[in-house]
């Protein structure tokens, strides 16, 4: 290693241009909101792969995440953090994207274990997706196979400090670059891939439309988009014959 300076660090965000605040207390309020957000994080109980085994010790009395304000939450609509703990099979990735799109902004994704970074030990498998950040914007990666609870908590603290300083803005990137993410999803799931959530309308609502939100992939989506129907539930082929 020649110089420490050569190691890349995430660059600081530039201040929003042209924003003029007249109320001197507005920043105080923003700071307070950010502080409160960072100290009250609800993480979704949706665990994939083997890294989930490190979360019970991290959550329970020994390492006790709750002292940092991190609590488990059972529904995606009330959660802030989506934890991806380990390998993601292609079928699971579909569910993860459905879950992620249902979460309320601001939302954060943490990729735990090597498998979410680059396939990990399942890099040769036909069934697992390799690079998670191609399909979802990931805020923090916690590498390791698997990371110890200390590492999980240190990653959580990293995210907390990012939220406090306003750097954790990756959820906006999903709206701003929706065409890119949708293109990668379509490559894996086929051209007729669609989710129940209308991301383009949401991007318009949040004012996060950029020239990268719409593109060839979203055009393909609109071409294939079907109105949602209730899913057919059946247990075997025999039931179908009866009806």
């Amino acid at each position, binding site marked *: *290693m020649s110089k420490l300076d050569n190691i890349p660090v995430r660059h600081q965000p530039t201040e929003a241009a042209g924003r003029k605040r007249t109320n001197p207390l507005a920043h105080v309020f923003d700071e307070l909101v950010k502080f409160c957000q960072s100290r009250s994080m609800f993480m979704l109980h949706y665990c994939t792969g083997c890294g989930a085994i490190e979360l019970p010790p991290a959550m329970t009395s020994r390492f006790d995440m709750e002292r940092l304000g991190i609590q488990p939450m059972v529904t995606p609509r009330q959660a802030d953090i989506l934890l991806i703990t380990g390998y993601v099979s292609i079928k699971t990735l579909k569910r993860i994207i459905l879950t992620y799109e249902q979460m309320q902004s601001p939302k954060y994704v943490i990729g735990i274990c090597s498998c979410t970074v680059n396939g990990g030990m399942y890099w040769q498998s*036909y069934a697992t997706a390799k690079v998670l950040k191609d399909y979802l914007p990931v805020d923090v990666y916690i590498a390791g196979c698997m990371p110890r609870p200390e590492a999980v908590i240190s990653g959580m603290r990293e995210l907390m400090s990012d939220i406090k300083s306003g750097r954790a803005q990756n959820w906006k990137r999903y709206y701003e670059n929706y065409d890119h993410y949708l293109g990668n999803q379509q*490559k894996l799931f086929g051209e007729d891939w669609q989710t129940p959530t209308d991301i383009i309308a949401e991007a318009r609502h949040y004012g996060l439309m950029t020239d990268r939100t719409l593109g060839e992939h979203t055009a393909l989506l609109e071409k294939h988009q079907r109105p949602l129907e209730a899913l057919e539930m059946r247990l075997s082929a025999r039931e179908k014959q009866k009806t």
Partner: protein
Amino acid sequence: MSKDLNIWLDDLLGDIENIQFKRKSSRRVRVDVGSEALPALLELLQGRASYVHLSAISCVDWIEDEEFELVYHVWSYETRSLVSAHTRIPREPGVYLSIYDLYQPAAFFERDIHEMFGVFFEGSPDMEKFILTEWDGPPPMRKEFDSEAFVNQHFEWEQYHPQWLKDLEEEGGGVTTRPEDIRL
């Protein structure tokens, strides 16, 4: 009691022609049987020798012999022993009889083997997709399916090779064994 049953079973299996029988331990027996006789053997084991529990059906792809090996593991609660009945079927066309009428749990294993190896079981109640519902490629557990080639064709890799790592490598450090060097 159970010892007597084991001796009785050994005698019985030893008398049948055209099967190879090998007792591995007091609790395990390996039987090699032709594919035409396997249902009869299982019927005998279930009906006359208390092997009522089908633990699993497993499949091995012997691509050089152009054969699939099917292994039926049946367990007896009386003798507390496991009989593994091995049989070989030709790889093409890969069709075999279902034993659903003998052991109902077989439907589950046969459906799984059909999905993973492409072996069709005649008489099985349901040969539709099971776990790989969103998979339309070839059966992935067959030996001719190259998983690595499939992965390289369908996925991108994380390109992470920053300057500081290059500097490290110039000095003789970094990743010394690349993945392509340790491939089997």
